[in-house]
């Protein structure tokens, strides 16, 4: 209707001014209830020749698994390169390329490898390939994005039998097997890696892995096609679709229209602006799944926000429930912790109980003012929070934080940077210089709060961007890592969580649900947040419609 009014000129403008306000209210699901969130989607009934999917975060810069540490690459590589262990849609971790593991002591792990596993070129996967792959993280020339305190803790990796690999750690780490479900445990063919040289992982040389799909045509800037690997070792999990073309559309409007019209069969991380449009689509269905994602504001440890009292006060004062309800269209809940709600695959009751002792998410200005009195920094200095300018919803969230800050006498300045430039905030300390904080839609690699908290608040954690260090937290992290009993480790981890939330190196904003859309003709992928490390495309098939 509006279009006609506009074209009618001034008279129409008057009508617009006086009456016609577009848009229907969002029909929101209730993601606050964990039980409402899905783990899987209905199983497929038919196999398909081709499915077109979209990677909303764009083109992978590389498909080398050790350089796959973010949304664009991981969502593709998860179908290509497998790890020794694998995360499942229910967040449990199961042996994958490793058939079994035996702990000789709390620092020695002996892995029996699956037999009959072959790379896409038909060559068998050997213990040498596994040793080589694990050692890549220790080789500074390989520049592994997964090199961290976890891999630095590896003392030795050896072939101890024709189909057996032994890993010795410097200090106990009960999370080590879980870590091997990420690209830390990814196995690539040694010979092809050595032959490819500097082009490894690029469209020219590609990779050689064991996954259910191999790399087909890679049209740079447009799409990558995954071809089913018919020699896949796990016959029970053989891909149901012959070809999956993954496009790299990042514009929210284009994604929404492509999904709504059926030009694309499906996509994870449906843009928030498309929720209304797609929830009433007759061409497909929008699913909400269990998630390991949360949105947070990461302090760089400098400026006014470098003071924990300021961070806590700002979190307390901000109406994060309103952010979840409005900006996230009701698909998220206010975050009580930096560990997303339900993000655990052990000690469930312990973590759930511990959450009750964390501060509530309801805004409390009076309490925030009290907390702010403990601050030791100059509160007049503006707080600069950086966000990627192509994701405008971040500006709205920062604006809400600015409102809360104003009530406390704090001045918050949003600062947008181009998306391509923003990525450097996570890898280059120089890029972060001058910023007090930056936003993130973060995720747990696996549902292990200890790994996640260690990455954020451990002195050498992969995601410790501020040099955060607390002796008590460091000591508890080490103690928890050395504890093999799940419940005992969960109790220690819950203590870490409480201490971390008392210091808030990151400001928690919301826990997200996984937003998935699929056309009527396809189904089968997990609805939960496992698509970064689980071969989701192999589960995709037809509905028969």
């Amino acid at each position, binding site marked *: 209707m509006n279009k006609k009014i506009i074209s009618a000129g001034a008279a129409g403008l008057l009508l617009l001014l006086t009456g016609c306000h577009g848009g229907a209210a969002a029909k929101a699901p209730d993601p606050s209830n964990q039980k409402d969130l899905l783990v899987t989607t209905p199983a497929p009934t038919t196999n398909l020749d081709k499915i077109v999917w979209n990677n909303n975060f764009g083109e992978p810069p590389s498909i080398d698994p050790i350089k796959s540490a973010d949304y664009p690459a991981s969502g593709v590589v998860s179908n290509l390169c497998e790890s020794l262990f694998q995360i499942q849609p229910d967040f449990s971790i199961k042996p994958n390329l490793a058939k079994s593991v035996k702990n000789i002591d709390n620092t020695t792990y002996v892995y029996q490898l699956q037999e009959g596993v072959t790379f896409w070129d038909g060559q068998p996967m050997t213990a040498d390939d596994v040793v080589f792959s694990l050692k890549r993280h220790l080789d500074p020339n390989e520049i592994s994005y997964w090199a961290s305190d976890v891999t630095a803790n590896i003392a030795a990796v050896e072939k101890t039998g024709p189909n057996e690999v032994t890993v010795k750690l410097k200090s106990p780490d009960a999370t080590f097997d879980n870590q091997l479900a990420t690209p830390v445990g990814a196995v690539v063919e040694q010979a092809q890696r050595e032959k490819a040289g500097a082009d490894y992982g690029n469209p020219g040389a590609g990779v050689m892995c064991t996954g259910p799909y191999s790399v087909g045509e890679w049209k740079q800037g447009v799409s990558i096609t995954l071809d089913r690997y018919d020699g896949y070792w796990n016959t029970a999990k053989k891909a149901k679709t012959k070809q999956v073309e993954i496009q790299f559309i990042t514009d929210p*409007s284009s994604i929404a229209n492509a999904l709504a019209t059926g030009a694309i069969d499906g996509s994870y991380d449906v843009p928030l602006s498309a929720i209304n449009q797609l929830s009433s689509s007759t061409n497909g269905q929008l699913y909400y799944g269990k998630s390991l994602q949360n949105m947070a504001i990461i302090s760089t440890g400098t400026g006014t926000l470098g003071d924990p009292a300021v961070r806590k006060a700002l979190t307390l004062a901000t109406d994060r429930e309103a952010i979840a309800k409005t900006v996230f269209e009701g698909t998220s809940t206010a975050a009580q912790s930096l560990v997303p709600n339900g993000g655990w695959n052990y000690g469930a009751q312990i973590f759930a109980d511990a959450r009750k002792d964390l501060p509530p998410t309801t805004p409390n200005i009076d309490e925030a003012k009290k907390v702010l009195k403990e601050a030791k920094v100059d509160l007049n200095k503006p707080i600069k929070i950086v966000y990627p300018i192509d994701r405008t919803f971040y500006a709205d969230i920062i604006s809400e934080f600015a409102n809360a800050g104003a009530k406390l006498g704090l001045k918050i300045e949003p600062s947008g940077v181009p998306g391509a430039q923003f990525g450097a905030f996570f890898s280059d300390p120089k890029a972060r210089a001058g910023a007090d904080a930056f936003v993130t839609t973060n995720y747990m690699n696996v549902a292990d709060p200890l790994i996640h908290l260690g990455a954020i608040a451990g002195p050498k954690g992969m995601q410790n961007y501020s040099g955060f260090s607390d002796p008590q937290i460091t000591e508890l992290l080490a103690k928890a890592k050395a504890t093999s009993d799940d419940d005992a480790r969960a109790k220690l981890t819950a203590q870490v969580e409480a201490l971390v939330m008392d210091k808030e190196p990151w400001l928690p904003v919301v826990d997200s649900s996984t937003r998935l859309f699929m056309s009527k003709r396809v189904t089968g992928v997990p609805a939960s947040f496992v698509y970064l490390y689980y071969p989701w495309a192999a589960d995709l098939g037809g509905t028969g419609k």
Partner: protein
Amino acid sequence: MTSNESAVLGTQPAATPQRLPAAAGRLTSLRRRLGWVGIACAGIVAVVVLAALAGQFLVPYDPTVGSVTQRHLGYSAEHLLGTDQAGRDIFSRLLAGARTSLIGPLIVVITTAVAGSALALAAVWFGGKTDAFIGRVLDVLFAFPSLLLAILGVAIFGPGIVTASIALAVAYVPYSARVIRSVALRERNLPYVKAAELQGINGLTITLRHVLPNVWTQILTGSTINFGYAIVDLAALSFLGLGIQPPAADWGLMISNGQESLQQGFPEQSLYAGLCIVVTVAAMAYIGERLGGRAAAGRSKQ
């Protein structure tokens, strides 16, 4: 220029119009120069300038402050045009946006006019190698699309209205300089300039006091037209996130910020900001065309 000097140089002093009753006289003069449509355009520009000057005192709400709890509110007495996705009053942002949407183009046209005139007049006066050198430099700048050059400048010096405006001005200079040069070249060869040289008046004085006033109409006309282009280009830079930064109010930025709301069925923010740009640019362009047309007509009569 004194009247004696005019007589010596053979230039004609501007005709003194017969004094009419003040208001009617001004309107008649304006109508002759612009026509009725032009007067309407001038009225639009005046309103926009007024909004730019006084908008901050007229806005019912702080244009940079909103709450997500107030997002996408419809038309009401409290919010004449509703609220945007961050709960900010759209009417207030349009008013406040007039200032930032005009300051940038103003920087562009002033920088362009000064730099373009200086280069053109220097090329014309010195001629020869200087003219050729300036010409080649301008040719190189011509090779880059203006928006691309501006994006390059912003990428080097960082986003912001001043950076974006100056970067855009650099891209506009070749166009202005070339037009001004062509007019100045004609003036350079006229007898009054030769006469001034024979009198021993130095080049700088002749250029500034005699040539410049005679190319002034061209500069003014070009600036008026450039102003319209600059509004659109700066809006494009803001749209790309390279100009004004949120939460500041700016029409280009409002179009960009409203993209996702458009998809959600709330077109108001982008629609009205776009409308403001279109109307202002059209008005400025029409005035520029009228002034340029009259100047050309005047020249052909001479």
